[in-house]
């Protein structure tokens, strides 16, 4: 069913099959290990039921739904403004980035376009939530592998970014700053200069983490060749974002299908890695943070003046129609399929969250790995429970 094209993967599978034969001869008995829902490595309440033979995983099945909040149903009985506050909480680490595609979908249905200044500020905040999100990943990856020190650096430097988000929006975690047609407020005075200083700090952090983690050979031995996802399998499962780029698929919605954000005017690079293993996923995200700081610097330099709100009616009724808008969120492709029937509320919202697809590959990926590798792979896939359970 799933085509295996990667030769290394084939070799691994053959090696595992040989191991399995040995174990049949030894007649060992398996064990079912229940990882989660309360487990430090599952970022929330994901549960993984792993069938083990010794330390080796025979089969692993993720069980989601411990945090399912029914946002698709709830948004059917809420106005667009109210629903935005829900969307915010899907992937709670990159909240602002969740609002954007929903608002953009509503804007497309209404045929409204945000003024350039709003678009630029949106892009800045979008990238800042990516940085805050991925900084945490960079530190967390170390913790999952047993290196506790980097995560403190991560929390320290993420705070600077969150402070900037808070200064602009009033909310550290759930800004709810985006409105149909623009933004709630303009940026405060002096924010641009502060942001550029913070970006400098973030770049320093990236160098630090590269020294501290990637400089340790143990980190490479733990991540190289672990959880290899061939590009074809990755696409079949709908992996997106850094997970897909780490498998060598050169695709970034910011560049390839940018809707309503200011990316086409900027000079930046989409990084890919040919290996598709955990190390590649870490490396791609590290480069992405660096690119994001560059993007923000450019946007801060060329911020257009003007209004931050387009003309929109006071009470928003979205004309009937269907719109699909997705953006390149910190975790991957986040999209909303909004169906409107001319009411105050959306008729149906299909939330396509990145983590749902990213985690759906785990049964395929975890077969035959060792228990510590489960943690490595889950950490490198990087998911947020709210993004799976919606």
């Amino acid at each position, binding site marked *: 069913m799933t085509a295996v094209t990667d030769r290394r993967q084939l070799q691994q599978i053959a090696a595992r099959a040989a191991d399995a034969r040995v174990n049949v001869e030894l007649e060992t008995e398996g064990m079912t290990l229940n990882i989660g829902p309360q487990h430090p490595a599952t970022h929330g309440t994901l549960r993984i039921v792993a069938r083990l033979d010794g330390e080796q995983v025979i089969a692993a099945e993720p069980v989601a739904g411990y945090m399912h909040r029914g946002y698709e149903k709830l948004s059917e009985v809420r106005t667009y403004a109210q629903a935005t506050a829900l969307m915010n909480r899907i992937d709670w680490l990159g909240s602002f980035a969740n609002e954007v595609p929903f608002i953009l979908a509503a804007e497309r249905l209404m045929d409204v376009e945000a003024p350039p200044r709003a678009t630029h500020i949106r892009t800045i905040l979008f990238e800042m939530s990516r940085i805050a999100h991925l900084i945490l990943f960079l530190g967390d990856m170390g913790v999952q592998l047993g290196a506790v020190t980097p995560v403190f650096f991560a929390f320290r430097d993420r705070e600077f970014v969150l402070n900037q988000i808070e200064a602009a929006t009033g909310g550290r975690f759930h800004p709810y700053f985006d409105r149909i047609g623009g933004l709630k407020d303009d940026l405060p005075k002096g924010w641009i200069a502060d942001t550029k200083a913070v970006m400098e700090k973030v770049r320093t952090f990236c160098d630090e983490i590269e020294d501290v983690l990637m400089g340790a050979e143990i980190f490479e031995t733990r991540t190289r060749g672990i959880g290899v996802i061939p590009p074809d399998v990755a*696409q079949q499962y709908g992996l997106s974002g850094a997970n897909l780029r780490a498998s060598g698929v050169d695709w970034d919605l910011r560049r390839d299908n940018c809707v309503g954000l200011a990316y086409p005017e900027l000079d930046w690079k989409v990084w890919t890695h040919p290996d598709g293993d955990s190390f590649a996923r870490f490396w791609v995200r590290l480069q992405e943070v660096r690119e994001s700081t560059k993007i923000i610097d450019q946007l801060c330099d060329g911020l257009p003046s003007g209004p931050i709100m387009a003309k929109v009616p006071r*009470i928003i009724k979205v004309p009937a*129609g269907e719109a699909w808008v997705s953006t390149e969120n910190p975790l991957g492709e986040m999209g909303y399929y909004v169906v409107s029937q001319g009411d105050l509320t959306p008729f149906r919202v299909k939330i396509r969250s990145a983590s749902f697809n990213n985690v759906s*590959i785990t049964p395929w990926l975890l077969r035959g790995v060792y228990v510590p590798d489960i943690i490595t792979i889950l950490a490198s896939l990087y998911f947020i429970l709210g993004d799976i359970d919606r």
Partner: protein
Amino acid sequence: MADDAATTDAATETPEEEVEAVQPDELREGIVARFGDLLGDALVDSLIDPGVDLTIRVRTDAWRAAADVARNHLGARYFCFLSAIDWLPSPYGRSMDSEVDTVLAAQAGDVAEPRSSEIVQGTTGGDTRFQVFARVAHLNGDGGFWGITIKADVPDDSLTVESWVPIYAGADWHEREAWEMFGLTFTGHPGLRNIYLPSGFEGHPLRKDYPLLSRMVKPWPGIVDVEPMPTDDEDGDGGGAAAEGSAEGGDS
């Protein structure tokens, strides 16, 4: 929630921008043509949003074939999502500007029929209450990206369509979700079981006739707390009526 930055009340005024000249979208038209060649008359309808998006609807029996064409003939190897939609207008939900809460009013006998139950399908039409729709995309990194939304009717009597798992392995979880949320069955799926809901859960929550209990108890959370601003007369007609309506709801 009131938006301070919005300065106009003109509900239908369109932004004063020059309307972009509608350009023929050769890429997407070519894709539709390929689908037409390969699926024959199973391709029911298509909608091209030039330069932006593409939606097609296929006959139910060609649902899996459409996936096959998209992936193996047109190179849309990236699977984005698969879901379903229930076109039945909600018998419960009440719009913020309607005079009375339809659910409570129907219970009190004030209105015989809460709401029009006429099914209005969205773009590319349809004949049944349920539709499945999925999105796949072609990525090749040099800007030649395109995505396509594929829809199909789900027969009302059987509520069954073919599974996409043999074509896109990633459809597994999405079909499980559609199975439990809408009660649709996907033939050929390796194991339809609950993904979000506890096993043994009764009902299909995303169907429109599945009541949302919080709405039954307290219509429009949020709007009951909003009182019209004293100085803001123009706002009175929308928010005030709703506030009254919910006050009534609280009494009954």
